[in-house]
């Protein structure tokens, strides 16, 4: 089929609404209010380094928790019978169909000072806990919202895995632990990597979870950007500089992750 022309409207669309806007972010990041070239915005990002560190730190903790909670579940689902497997996967996806603002709001109901969890604690005689407006609540919100993004890619790799490879390992004398560490885990790396990126990227750049569950004290990069564009601190130039730094940061993280992936793949290739 020779039909190159069919993608021209798409290319024009993407240049107009993806490439041009990206270039505008770069342009705004390097100019001041009257359009003169400046490094001031990028230098100004430096004063928010604590916010950047907090975002990366909380995002990383949430990603690790998602991996630790999600991998065993994906593994268990992949090991059950086909019929209940479908139901279990559906039940993982179903919550994503409810608006995530509402689900996060529901956590406010559960966590707040006179909320449902504290009422429960009181009923069984435990002391009340300050849960809402803490960094822990923000991490909980991230884990809650992005856990399915970790489970699903790992699950799909694990179900596609050729069971004869595992049998071969068992035949060659590997015990359960060795089979898991030397066969199952390395072969599921691509799933883990896409899961980690799918959790880490939105977690680092979120601004709603921190706003709703973190109170004012747990400002993240996303909140900073929001403030520069639609908030009180209106300054699109600084906002663009922060966005640019965030973008570069995430590209670097993904570059490192992909490097890791390639290494594993070439090992697999050698084996064959």
């Amino acid at each position, binding site marked *: *089929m*020779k*039909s*190159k022309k*069919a*993608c*021209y*409207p*798409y*290319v024009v*669309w*993407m240049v107009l*609404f*993806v490439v041009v*806007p*990206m270039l*505008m*972010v770069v342009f705004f990041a390097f100019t001041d209010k009257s359009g003169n070239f400046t490094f001031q915005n990028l230098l100004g990002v430096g004063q928010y380094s604590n916010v950047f560190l907090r975002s990366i730190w909380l995002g990383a903790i949430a990603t690790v928790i998602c991996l630790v909670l999600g991998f*065993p*579940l994906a593994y*268990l689902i992949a090991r059950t019978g086909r*019929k209940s497997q*479908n*139901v279990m996967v*559906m*039940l*993982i996806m*179903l*919550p994503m*169909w*409810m*608006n*995530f*603002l*509402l*689900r996060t709001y*529901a*956590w*406010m*109901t*559960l966590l*707040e000072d*006179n909320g*449902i969890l504290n*009422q429960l604690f009181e009923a069984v005689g435990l002391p009340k806990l300050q849960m809402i407006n803490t960094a822990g609540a923000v991490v909980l919100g991230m884990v809650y919202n992005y*856990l*399915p993004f970790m489970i699903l890619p790992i699950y799909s790799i694990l179900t596609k895995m050729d069971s004869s490879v595992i049998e071969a390992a068992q035949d060659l004398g590997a015990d359960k632990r060795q089979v898991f560490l030397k066969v199952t885990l390395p072969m599921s790396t691509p799933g883990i990597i896409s899961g980690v990126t799918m959790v880490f990227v939105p977690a680092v*750049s979120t*601004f*709603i979870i921190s706003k709703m569950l973190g109170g004012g004290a747990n400002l993240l990069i*996303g909140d900073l*950007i929001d403030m520069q*564009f*639609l908030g009180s601190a209106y300054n699109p130039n600084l906002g*663009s500089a922060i*966005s640019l730094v*965030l*973008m570069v940061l*995430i*590209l670097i993280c993904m570059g490192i992750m992909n490097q890791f992936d390639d290494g594993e793949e070439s090992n697999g290739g050698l084996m064959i």
Partner: protein
Amino acid sequence: MKVLSKVYCFFIYLFLYAPIVVLIVFSFNDSTTMSRSVWSGFSFKWYGQLFSDRLIMQALGNTILIAVVAAVVSTILGTAAAIGINSLKRWPRRLVMNITNLPMVNPEIVTGVSMMLLFVIAVRAINTSLGIGSIMIAHITFCLPYVILSVKPKLSQMDQNLYEAALDLGYRPSQAFLKVVFPEIIPGIVTGMIMAFTLSIDDFIISYFTSGTTQTLPIYIYSMTRKRISPEINALSTLLFAIVLVLLLIVNLRKEKENKEILHEEEEP
């Protein structure tokens, strides 16, 4: 061990569903103070009020209109693009695919503010304001990659000779496309369209930056979270959740039936 894994699964699912149960339970709460954690009796009153709330209904209408337009336009543009990309040479193809991946790897908030920068200037130039049009453009843009990624694999799986055979047998290119290529890739097109529709309905971040003063349902919910969310919204999301649940059950049951039929056919000699 078996018991242990069952307990583990139970706790993860409990964690995933606890907030949803809370939402659903409080949609039936007979409170007058809009309290979000005190139970004061069973009632349907929020369901009744929901349908007479003009603002919510308007936001819902906007959301559905935007999702339908975004799904249809991105499906048409994206399917054409997938076909075109398939016949590009190696380097241009890589370039186009990299641009396609850009909105997917970029944090949503960056995509949102970048489009806001463009729209704010464009809107000033043609003397209108941000609104339903700019949200539609933004939604079409972030839906396009998903459509392409679900159509393209179907195209590569297809036997390229089929199309040429159809031409040899006297079909015009348009006929050959409609009668040979289209039936092969239709599952990918449908998947892409459903994905586009659901992504658009649920999107908050990109809409938030490109909407101006127009309300979609997620934006309306967000503006309420800053005060108190009316239980009407709980009622609405309970209804939406129920609809999705029923749809998924129907799809699953149909799949199971199909699988059974295939099995039966295989068993019969």
